[in-house]
């Protein structure tokens, strides 16, 4: 294995907590929400929300390797907690800007921060139009993870000169309108946040650098979720085809089924290799981090999508029902593939980096 003994210990703990508290599965008419119990237990028993926060600010002083483990486990169970948005993205954004004041609240899981980033359906920094004049932010941010519960927004926006900078805004003002969205993937709440001359505070003047890092952070973390989801789908499908009988024998004894499971296994193990590699690059500040992270998301997004789709197909009719978990993973595979740029976008980013010339 690539991970350390401590990381594997962390994994066992997280898996045990999540396993003892299987998330309630949402009804079709439910709004996306959080599993408050898992949230509290992960915060209190594991300290999961502060893994990447320095000890001086109430965290464990870990690296991306530790949050990666948590993301992978959350990807396995799809437990809805404000982790990716708050404990990974917003926390990393604040750290990258040296804005440490909110960190203790985030580290103990008592407060939620959200990174309000995407505009017009893209995370491309060049597409950002939100702008700040005289300390007031105007713009619309979409697909904001954990936005509906956020106590604080971290917002990349343009300065008066058109440069990119990073600001923080409080939701407790009428100038900030937070609109929870109905999502296809009910396990991952999103919000649209409209800033209408909302008072903000500058925390980072070098927005480009921060966003470049955050693209890598996001791509890496979501690849861990994709890996976890793919693992769980593979297990579920393997168990199903071993027991489900048709034509008088387990369907897992049919060669086409066997071979497709083999292909899924290869996808999942390969996803593990590239995802862990990106985490290691992030944790060690590797110079080719952008390449590592884009590779991880480009590969893992398609791998998880393929595995989740086959999970539905190989479960047959039951895999198409709301009652069975397969559709949750199928929908998560979709949202995970679209958040922070899809696989084609990451491949396009890789183009100039790896094709040269």
């Amino acid at each position: 294995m690539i991970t350390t003994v401590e990381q594997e210990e962390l994994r066992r703990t997280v898996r045990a907590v999540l396993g003892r508290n299987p998330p309630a599965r949402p009804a079709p008419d439910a709004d996306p929400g959080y599993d408050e119990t898992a949230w509290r237990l992960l915060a209190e028993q594991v300290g999961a929300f502060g893994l990447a926060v320095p000890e001086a600010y109430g965290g464990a002083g870990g690296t991306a390797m530790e949050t990666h483990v948590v993301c992978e486990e959350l990807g396995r169970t799809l437990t809805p907690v404000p982790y990716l948005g708050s404990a990974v993205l917003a926390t990393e954004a604040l750290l990258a800007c040296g804005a440490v004041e909110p960190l203790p609240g985030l580290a103990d899981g008592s407060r939620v921060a959200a990174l309000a980033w995407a505009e017009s359906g893209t995370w491309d920094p060049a597409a950002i139009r939100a702008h700040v004049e005289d300390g007031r932010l105007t713009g619309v941010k979409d697909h904001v993870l954990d936005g509906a519960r956020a106590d604080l927004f971290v917002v990349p926006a343009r300065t008066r000169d058109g440069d990119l900078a990073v600001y923080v805004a409080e939701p407790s003002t009428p100038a900030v309108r937070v609109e929870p969205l109905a999502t296809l993937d009910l396990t991952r709440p999103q919000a649209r946040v409209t800033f209408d001359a909302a008072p903000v505070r500058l925390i980072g003047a070098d927005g480009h650098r921060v966003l470049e890092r955050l693209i890598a952070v996001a791509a890496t973390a979501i690849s861990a979720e994709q890996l976890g989801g793919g693992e769980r789908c593979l297990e579920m499908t393997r168990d199903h085809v071993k027991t489900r009988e048709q034509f008088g024998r387990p369907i897992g004894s049919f060669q086409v089924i066997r071979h497709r499971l083999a292909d899924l296994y290869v996808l999942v193990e390969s996803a593990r290799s590239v995802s862990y590699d990106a985490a290691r690059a992030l944790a060690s500040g590797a110079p080719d981090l952008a390449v590592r992270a884009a590779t991880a998301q480009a590969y893992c997004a398609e791998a998880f999508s393929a595995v989740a789709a086959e999970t539905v197909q190989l479960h047959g009719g039951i895999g198409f029902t709301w009652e069975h978990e397969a559709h949750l993973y199928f929908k998560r595979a979709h949202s995970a593939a679209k958040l922070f740029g899809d696989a084609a976008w990451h491949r396009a980013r890789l183009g100039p980096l790896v094709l040269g010339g």
Partner: protein
Amino acid sequence: MSRGEAFRREVRAWLEDGLTGEFAGARGLGGPGREHEAFDVRLAWERHMAAAGLTCLGWPERYGGRDASIEEQVVFHEEYALARAPARVNHIGENLLGPTIIAFGTDEQRRRLLPPIVAVEELWCQGYSEPGAGSDLANVQTRAALDGGRWRISGQKVWTSLATEADWCFVICRTEPGSTRHRGLSYLLVPMRQNGVEVRPIVQMTGTSEFNEVFFDGALTDGANIVGAPGDGWRIAMATLGFERGVATLGQQVGFRGELEGVIELARETGAVADPLLRDRLVRSWIGLEVMRLNAVRTMAGVAAGAPGPESSISKLVWGTWHRELGELAIDVLGAAGMVADGRPYDLSDVQRLYLFSRADTIYAGSNEIQRDIIAERVLGLPREAR
């Protein structure tokens, strides 16, 4: 002007005229993934069609049909789909049970059962699949036995479309105790509105319900409500499936074309049409639909009058896979916006519904795997694998 063209004009004019007034809002209602929509309106519409003599076109005139040629039926389905007329509610009666009764039923059954199908007074559903059987249709556990001149039925069927609305169900039952697989089965016609029948909708990943579970707990039907002899059930059930994918295929393709055009239109709106990778997939999808259309034309030309052969397996395999890929393409064209539904609770957009519902296209009505087995065995003559 050919007879087909004259008929096309007649149908088109009638549809244009018909889809006004009380049916003005009926266009586009229903269909795969949206079977829950506006059932009452669609039922009223189909009765309106019946009044105009436009149901059961391909049936012989003596049973209330119009003896329409293959060409005319194709024309009708194409025009129907082009007009975006509502999805039919009695297609199971018209296309499956009716032809089966005409081919295998008694005169008494024809007299009793066919007119209410033509008039859309009685709706039908199909009781084939069972839980735990999946694609293995011969794995029938539902039992029936004669009891004082009536069949008494117990067991469970699943994936039954329209079961909540149907008046009748044709049910494959095991009537010979101790028999296995294809033997000892019978094809019974069972009234749905009785105490021994319970219907439970299945909620799908779309959040809606097209399919149902049907529980038979001592349900009764008259001893005469059997098609063919006891033990003939498998043969007749397979013949019914053979009727399933006939000329309606071309109408289905018109619907597909409408969906594809919608996706292309969306791609023009979002700018995805200028993305070279998506553009190539859009053209591929367009080509795929052409392939299906031309395959269907060849099949129609070849087997105009005969029963569908393995062509239906090709057709199912190709359209199921094509439609699933269209769903994937559509959601990719939508980009990040595809993560967000139209409204709450779980009010999905057409594209999202297409994306999700098309996952079932490669599973139901014979999965891709089953179709490949059929082609390998019946067309290519490859040896059966050891089972």
